[in-house]
C-alpha cells in the first residue's frame, strides 16, 4: 500500500467513525459546536499520532502477552500529555472538552489502529496512518457538529447565520438531536455507498476486528 493511499484511507474509504463505527461516544457528545469538534479532532489526532509512533517503534520489543496493557499505558500517557498541554496553553478548549479529554483513552479508534496497523508497520507508515485516521475522525465530527450547530444554534463556528439564527431548533444541540443527526448521517453514508460501507453486521466496538484479542494478557 503506497503512502498516499495510507493517508487518504482514513478519510473516506475506511473512515473510522462512519464506516467502522468506532469512537462514537465523543462524536455524539462533543459535536454541539464546530469549534469543539475541531478541538477534539486535534486532541485525538495528537494521541493517535503519538500512540501509533510509540507502538510502531516498540513493535518488536513488546511481548504479545502484555501488549494490550502496554498499549493502554502508552495511550493513557499521551492523553495525559494532551490534557496537560490543553489546560496550560488552551484553557477554553480544555473546558469545552470536559470529561471527554481524558476519555480519549478509551476511544476504540486508537486501540484499533494500534492492533491493526501500528503493530505491523514501520514508524513512518504508522504516523501517516494516524494522521489519516485522525483527519477522518475530525471530518466526521465536523460534519456532525456543523449540522447540529447550524440547525440547533443558528451559528457556524460561532458566526450567526442570517436566516437560521432566529429560528434555531435547540433540540439539535441536545442529546436526542445528536442521536438523530448521527443516524441520518450513517443512513446517508449507506445510501451513497449503496451498502458497501457497512462491512460488518455487528457494529461498534463489538465488531472491532481485534475484539477477540482485546483482552489483557491475551488470555482467552
Amino acid at each position, binding site marked *: 500500500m503506497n503512502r498516499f493511499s495510507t493517508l487518504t484511507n482514513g478519510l473516506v474509504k475506511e473512515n473510522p467513525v462512519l464506516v467502522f463505527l468506532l469512537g462514537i461516544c465523543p462524536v455524539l457528545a462533543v459535536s454541539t459546536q464546530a469549534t469543539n469538534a475541531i478541538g477534539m479532532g486535534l486532541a485525538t489526532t495528537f494521541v493517535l499520532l503519538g500512540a501509533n509512533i510509540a507502538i510502531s517503534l*516498540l513493535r518488536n520489543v513488546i511481548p504479545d502477552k502484555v501488549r494490550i496493557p502496554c498499549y493502554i499505558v*502508552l495511550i493513557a500517557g499521551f492523553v*495525559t*500529555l494532551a490534557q496537560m498541554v490543553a489546560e*496550560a496553553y488552551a*484553557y477554553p478548549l480544555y473546558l469545552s472538552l470536559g470529561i471527554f479529554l481524558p476519555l480519549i483513552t478509551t476511544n476504540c479508534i486508537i486501540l484499533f489502529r494500534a492492533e491493526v496497523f501500528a503493530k505491523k508497520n514501520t514508524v513512518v507508515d504508522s504516523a501517516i496512518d494516524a494522521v489519516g485516521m485522525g483527519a477522518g475522525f475530525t471530518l466526521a465530527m465536523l460534519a456532525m457538529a456543523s449540522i447540529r450547530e447550524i440547525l440547533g444554534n443558528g451559528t457556524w463556528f460561532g458566526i450567526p447565520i442570517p436566516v437560521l439564527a432566529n429560528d434555531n431548533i435547540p433540540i439539535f444541540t441536545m442529546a436526542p438531536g445528536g442521536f438523530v443527526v448521527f443516524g441520518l448521517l450513517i443512513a446517508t453514508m449507506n445510501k451513497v455507498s449503496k451498502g458497501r460501507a457497512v462491512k460488518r453486521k455487528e457494529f461498534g466496538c463489538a465488531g472491532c476486528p481485534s475484539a477477540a484479542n482485546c483482552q489483557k494478557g491475551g488470555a482467552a
Partner: protein
Amino acid sequence: MNKEFLAPIFVLSIICLFVTGILSVGDMVTRPIIVEASNRRAEEVRQEIMPNAEEFLPIRSEGMPNTITEAFATTNNVGHIFIVTTKGYGGNVVIMCGIDTNGKIIKTMTLAEKETKGISTPVFEMESEYTGKDKNLEGIDAVTGATITSNAYIGAVRDAFAAFEIVRGIG
C-alpha cells in the same frame, strides 16, 4: 512457567516507568503555568465583583460556616468577598458574594454550577436582584420547579452573610 512472565512484566514495568518519567517532566513544566493562569482568572473575577477595591487580601475562614471555601478582605475597606460552595442538584454550586461594609450585597456571581439547563436557569438569571439586599433578602423567593437549586443559591448567600457577621465581629 515463571520465565514466561518475567520478560513481559519487565517490559511493561519499563514502559510504565518511562511514561511516568515523561509525564513528571510535563507536569513540572505545565503546573506553574496552570496555577498562575488560574490565579489570574480568580483575580479578574474578584475585580469584576468589586471594581473599586484596591487589593484583595485572603483572610482565614475559621469560625465561618464550612461552606465558605475562600474569603477576602480589601485593603481600602470597600467590603468583603466570600466564595461559597453548596450542594446543588447536579453537583456543586459555587458562588462569589461581595458584601460591602454596611452589610449590603454588592454583587453575586456564579462561578460553577451543573444544574439542569432550562429549569434551573432562572435561579442564576435573577442574580442581579441580589444587589443591594441585606441579610433579610427581602423579595428573594425560590424559583418554582427548581427547589434544590434555589435553596442551594439562597443558602450560599445566607452563609456569606453569616461569614460577614463573623468578620464584622472581629474587626
